[in-house]
């Protein structure tokens, strides 16, 4: 009897206490509590104010280090912009951080990773034909959202130029996909460009729909795994054929990007992730990188897989669950983020110690994702 009660006590404590303790912070993030949001936003703003060097990253690949430097500024800008949209009272404090992020994004040193791959600078060749889908798409998403948030934006002219360049590249693409690097094309990178054009269209009244409709249709049907509906990770830009499977990291990030501009395709992508990849143990949520019955390793997109669980897919799904109002999944994933992220406070700032500059910028963007646009 004594032993049975001990087992019951252990089970009761293990099922109830960790999910409560680790979910306290997620509950504050879910409702957008200003103190919780501002503390991480301040940390991210301070990081971009100091500047992010590619030398801060550990990968042996110069390309990956450059991508992460770029990604840090991009996610920082998106996160800070989302905070300003939800809490206009913080805009005065955080807008310099947004400006610092944009300054970083357009700096020559940050553009260099893309220029090295293409043999030309993306901003100096906007009238050209080469893709630059990731650099231009991710940057323009920030510029469009910044313009939608601050009507007095200083970057409207650049936003217009990149928007028209991207729209033309979508229109001229035989397979409706714009290449990220020579002979490399990724639907998730195109999703960022599409979202940027949808926001640009909403803000300026420019009609981009005829240029991007074929690409959006491919994301709706053609580039989806027929069994799961997950977005195919990579497409051959010359043939239009897939050379990777539907995966969590690409699908969830594409759903997050697209949710800023529309809700139909992004909602379907998120539904595929939720249905086929999301799970939980003791109230701690996770997202697998591959659907059941498929096996594969982790890579630079997903991070190292732990029993198939995808760090990137799990993080990006936090944004999707907030954008689409899935409170249950948001809380489960937020508990996991608390457990594995280990947040600490320093003065007025709070940050995840396992995050670093990139991880904390991503987490700010994910936790503060705004409702999907109709």
């Amino acid at each position, binding site marked *: 009897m004594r032993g049975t009660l001990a087992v019951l006590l252990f089970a009761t404590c293990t099922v109830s206490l960790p999910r409560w303790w680790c979910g306290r912070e997620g509950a504050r993030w879910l409702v957008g509590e200003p103190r919780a949001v501002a503390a991480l936003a301040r940390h991210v703003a301070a990081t971009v104010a100091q500047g992010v060097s590619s030398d801060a990253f*550990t990968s042996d690949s110069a390309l990956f280090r450059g991508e992460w430097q770029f990604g840090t500024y991009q996610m920082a800008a998106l996160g800070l912009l989302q905070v300003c949209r939800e809490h206009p009272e913080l805009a005065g404090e955080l807008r310099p951080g947004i400006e610092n992020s944009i300054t970083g994004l357009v700096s020559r040193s940050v553009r260099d990773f893309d220029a090295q791959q293409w043999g030309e600078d993306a901003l100096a060749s906007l009238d050209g034909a080469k893709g630059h889908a990731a650099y231009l798409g991710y940057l323009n998403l920030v510029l469009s959202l910044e313009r939608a948030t601050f009507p007095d934006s200083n970057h409207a002219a650049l936003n217009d130029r990149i928007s028209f360049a991207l729209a033309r590249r979508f229109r001229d693409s035989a397979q409706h996909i714009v290449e990220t690097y020579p002979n490399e094309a990724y639907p998730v990178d195109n999703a960022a460009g599409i979202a940027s054009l949808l926001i640009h269209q909403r803000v300026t009244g420019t009609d981009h729909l005829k240029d991007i409709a074929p690409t959006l249709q491919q994301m709706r049907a053609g580039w989806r795994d027929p069994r799961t509906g997950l977005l195919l990770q990579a497409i051959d830009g010359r043939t239009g054929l897939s050379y990777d499977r539907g995966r969590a990291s690409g699908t969830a990030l594409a759903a997050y990007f697209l949710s800023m501009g529309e809700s139909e395709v992004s909602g379907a992508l998120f539904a595929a992730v939720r249905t086929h990849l999301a799970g939980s143990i003791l109230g701690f949520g996770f997202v697998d990188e591959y659907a059941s019955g498929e096996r594969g390793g982790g890579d630079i997109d997903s991070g190292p897989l732990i029993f198939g669980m995808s760090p990137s897919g799990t993080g990006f799904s936090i944004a999707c669950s907030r954008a689409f109002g899935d409170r249950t999944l948001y809380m489960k994933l937020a508990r996991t983020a608390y457990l594995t992220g280990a947040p600490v406070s320093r003065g007025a700032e709070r940050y995840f110690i396992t995050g670093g500059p990139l991880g904390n910028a991503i987490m700010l963007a994910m936790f503060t994702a705004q409702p999907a646009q109709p």
Partner: protein
Amino acid sequence: MKRPPPSLRRIVVEAAVLVLAHFALLQVLARVNLLEHLLAPGAGSRGALGITVVFLLLRGFLLVFAPGWVAVRLWLWATRPKAEFSGSSGGETAAPTA
């Protein structure tokens, strides 16, 4: 030979050591950019990865399993048979009832 049940002092001290070890590692790791090591380990990532794995295992145990583990140890201590009283020292004050 049967091991004597842990004393209340030992239960509390072991739980406190667990919390302090976690806090100390937290402070150390707060000064290292870990995500980059995790996503794409470089040539100098081995040490950081090792500490990170130890920290995450400790944190996982502390936050998920330790509450139940400590509760069970306290339960077993509080309900220990009378014959074990003399074997458990450490300043216990509560008299067991079972």
